[in-house]
């Protein structure tokens, strides 16, 4: 569905070159649900804007929905949908009018546009706002409208740039229900960007981590966490001597891991903590060492980002 090779985009700002996207390669197959995860300024929106024909790449190629973005941008537009990071709805327009207009822009008949508009008003909880002027909506209401607008024509490939930014938990859940249903019923391929680690983790199948315009990891959240961060097993013992013995026991176990001892506490970084923890406890018992507490912490995508860049995504959010 999407094939990108060496995609690059530079901006000239006050005589300096900003390398927003630096040679990205990636493929997304039909029906996939993928997320771009990265801090502010990583190049997420710039990449999406190139894929949706809003920006020309400085170099590299991109085929989107079977069409080259440079050779045939008009056909790309016909086949995709894009919900941008800004507010798509015109401020002077009424909510329902904007939905109907959007359907017309994509060649739907007036009647068809109205039916779609009403369906989306209902399912995204916008019905009471149908006659309101967009400028009077709250930020979250406006975001919901943007999403509804992007869904009117039911594209086979949908790009969403931070769709859930500014939504409360209930509406975020609502949005996801909608996205997942869209995918199930119409087989829509979905490419989104997000800051929310939990969202990338639990909702999407594939996460692509981008930082400074470069793709630094690509895989399922499970794979990334197992390969790049690993689970943390923490066991406390009665005495420091026991902790040192426990470290020797750990070293004899087969599963590869890093061991760290601190006072009476031993920490193991392992790929499958759920398997290692019971095994470790049995080994300790066999060696006559009594564990007092045992704890297993699964990694988050933030741990992955930290392992890759040495920075936490949570911190860099507010810094840049």
């Amino acid at each position, binding site marked *: 569905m999407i094939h990108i090779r060496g995609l690059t985009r530079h901006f000239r700002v006050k005589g300096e070159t900003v390398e927003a996207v630096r040679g990205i390669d990636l493929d997304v197959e039909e029906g996939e649900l993928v997320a771009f995860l990265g801090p502010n300024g990583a190049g997420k929106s710039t990449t999406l804007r190139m894929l949706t024909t809003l920006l020309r790449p400085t170099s590299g190629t991109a085929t989107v929905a079977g069409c080259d973005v440079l050779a045939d941008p*008009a056909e790309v*537009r016909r086949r995709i949908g894009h919900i*941008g990071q800004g507010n798509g709805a*015109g*401020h*002077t327009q009424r909510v329902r009018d904007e939905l109907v*207009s959007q359907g*017309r*822009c994509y060649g739907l008949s007036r009647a068809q546009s109205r039916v779609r508009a009403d369906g989306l008003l209902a399912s995204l909880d916008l019905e009471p706002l149908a006659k309101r002027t967009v400028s009077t909506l709250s930020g979250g209401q406006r975001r919901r409208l943007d999403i509804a*607008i992007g869904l009117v024509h039911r594209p086979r490939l949908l790009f969403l740039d931070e769709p859930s930014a500014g939504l409360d938990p209930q509406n975020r859940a609502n949005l996801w229900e909608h996205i997942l249903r869209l995918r199930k019923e119409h087989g829509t391929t979905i490419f989104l960007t997000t800051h929310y680690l939990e969202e990338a983790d639990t909702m999407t199948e594939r996460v692509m981590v981008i930082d400074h315009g470069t793709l630094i990891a690509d895989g399922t959240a499970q794979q990334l966490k197992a390969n790049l961060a690993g689970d943390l097993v923490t066991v406390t013992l009665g005495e420091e001597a026991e902790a040192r013995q426990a470290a020797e026991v750990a070293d004899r176990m087969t599963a590869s891991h890093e061991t760290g001892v601190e006072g009476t506490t031993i920490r193991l970084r392992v790929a499958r903590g759920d398997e290692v923890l019971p095994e470790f406890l049995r080994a300790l018992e066999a060696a006559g060492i009594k564990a007092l507490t045992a704890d297993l912490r699964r990694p988050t995508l933030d741990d992955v980002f930290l392992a890759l860049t040495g920075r936490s995504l949570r911190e860099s959010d507010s810094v840049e």
Partner: protein
Amino acid sequence: MSMKVVGDTGIVLARELRPALRDPFSLAFSLIQPLVFLGLFGPLLSDMPGLEGVGDGTPWQWFVPGILVMLGLSSTSMSGYNLLIEAQTGSHERMLVTPLSRSAMLIGRALKEIAPLLVQALLIIALVMPFGFRFYPLGALVGMFLLATLGVGLGALSYALAIVSKDREWLFYGATQTLLFPLLILSGMLLPLDMGPAWMRAVGQVNPLTYVVEGERALFAGDFGGSAVLYGAMAAFAMAVVGLVVGTRTMRRAAA
């Protein structure tokens, strides 16, 4: 123009007009401006020396087409202003990702500024008829069509200027204000250039608006015969073509 451009223009125009149609008060408001013009210019016009000679009948016959061109000029040249706002919020970008024809986006926006002009024109004509203005419906109809054509060109140029001025609003205002008044005065729109110095007449000769204004005067006088209408039509169509070429180019280049 292909069918797609025509259809898409209708969609863009309908979307642009809807907020005004939803709020009839804003429509009523748009009628005040022509009333102010008539109310303030009228008394001056009735005994201004030098105007008796222009056109036959009342000075209104000469003056009304000029007012209409000026109203069209000022509204279409500000059509980029709305775009400036939409570019900042993201709704322009949203429209750009749709398959809408790019020319239709330019034409639809310009026509949105022309549509109220039709109502304004009718009001003005109705008001000046008791003062001896002679109304030639066919001429007026063709005249409004020419004005719309000119408006498409100017609107498209304004749109292009807005794209170039993104994040630099001063550029949009500065350029519009700087260009608008000289063009307006040097077309003999409100005051005849015949009385001006030679250099002004020379500049007027190369100002395409001069020909449109003269064409409009001929049309509103019901005079299809002379060359004024032909030259006016040529100037208006040339403006439309130039506007659309520059507009679509600028849209394309904005992505680069």
